[in-house]
């Protein structure tokens, strides 16, 4: 990561590394998955999340509680007939957090690609 491509030239100011802006709340496989699904689906039921993310109910509940406390998702409990159903929707803050995370991941990948393509990057055996 610290190859020549990352070193600023004279008079240049170094832009912060994309990884420094990553939010630990969102930068986690399961929580990023929950936010992605909720964003795409508009609203999503607990069971769908559990199946798609291959989690136990308890594990998923913990992640949802973290996201709900952070104000990134809203959890709404209701009934379909006699069956209880829990629906999750993305809040405006969750939408922003997801967009920022995806943007930073793309920046990070682009940065890694640039570094690997640089003169001292790539395979050290060559």
């Amino acid at each position, binding site marked *: 990561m610290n190859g020549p491509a990352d070193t600023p030239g004279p008079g240049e100011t170094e832009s912060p590394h994309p990884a420094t802006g990553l939010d630990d709340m969102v930068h986690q*496989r399961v929580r990023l998955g929950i936010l992605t699904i909720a964003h795409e689906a508009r609203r999503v039921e607990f069971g769908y999340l559990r199946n798609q993310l291959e989690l136990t109910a308890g594990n998923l509940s913990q992640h949802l509680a973290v996201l709900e406390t952070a104000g990134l998702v809203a959890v709404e409990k209701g009934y379909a007939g006699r069956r209880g159903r829990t629906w999750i929707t993305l809040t405006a803050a969750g939408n922003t957090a997801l967009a920022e995370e995806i943007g930073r991941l793309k920046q990070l990948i682009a940065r890694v690609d640039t570094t690997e393509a640089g003169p001292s990057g790539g395979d050290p055996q060559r």
Partner: protein
Amino acid sequence: MTADSVPAGGDPRRLLADARDLARRVRLAQQVTWLPLLVLALVTFGAIPVYRFSQPVLSDCQAMADGQVCKAWYQAAQFYWWTALVLAYVVIAGGYLRVARARGLGTRVLPYVLTGVALVVLSAAVSAMWSILDHPYYPDPPPSSVQLLFRLLDPTGAIGLALLVLAWLERRVELLLFALGYLAVVLVPIDLGWGTGWGPNWAFAPQLTINGGLLLLGGIGFALAQRLRRPQ
């Protein structure tokens, strides 16, 4: 922070790929593309008997070299299209909601339904405006550019325009290509010589059969594709 959060499960490439895959699976589970195509095919086929068994309001008839030409208002057919299309969009919205809810998801069909209804209103407004302007160009036919615009804002054209919105909402290239193909058929009518000897009020039947048939075939095709693609 970077060292703790990026490696292993947090590899940015893998995270992004996982997120894209999850989004793709949601979109796949939300798709009920066959439903609007089937419903709109039925609405299109339903227009055929309405044209056949209703009488247009004729006015200002003028003798021409090869007969006579009149201003014609297909009152019953127009009311049929407006009502049937609005009802169709309500049925489509209900169907999408029902399917999505059963799969544990929300739906993104609302912009499509609103566009569809807005285009019905626009189509009615253009029709009313044409009457208010007292059929400009009459007794000559309007220029081809005006005819093309009319076909686009005609109920059959409006169906195709709204399908473009659905293709965008579902991020579905196949539906985009289908909608463009459908619009091409609507804008450049196919004349196979049918209907000439079928008697009065059959003039619209061939084109409606082609439009409805295309929607029906599309609906069947998308239904089959959906069965094959849906993850078990």
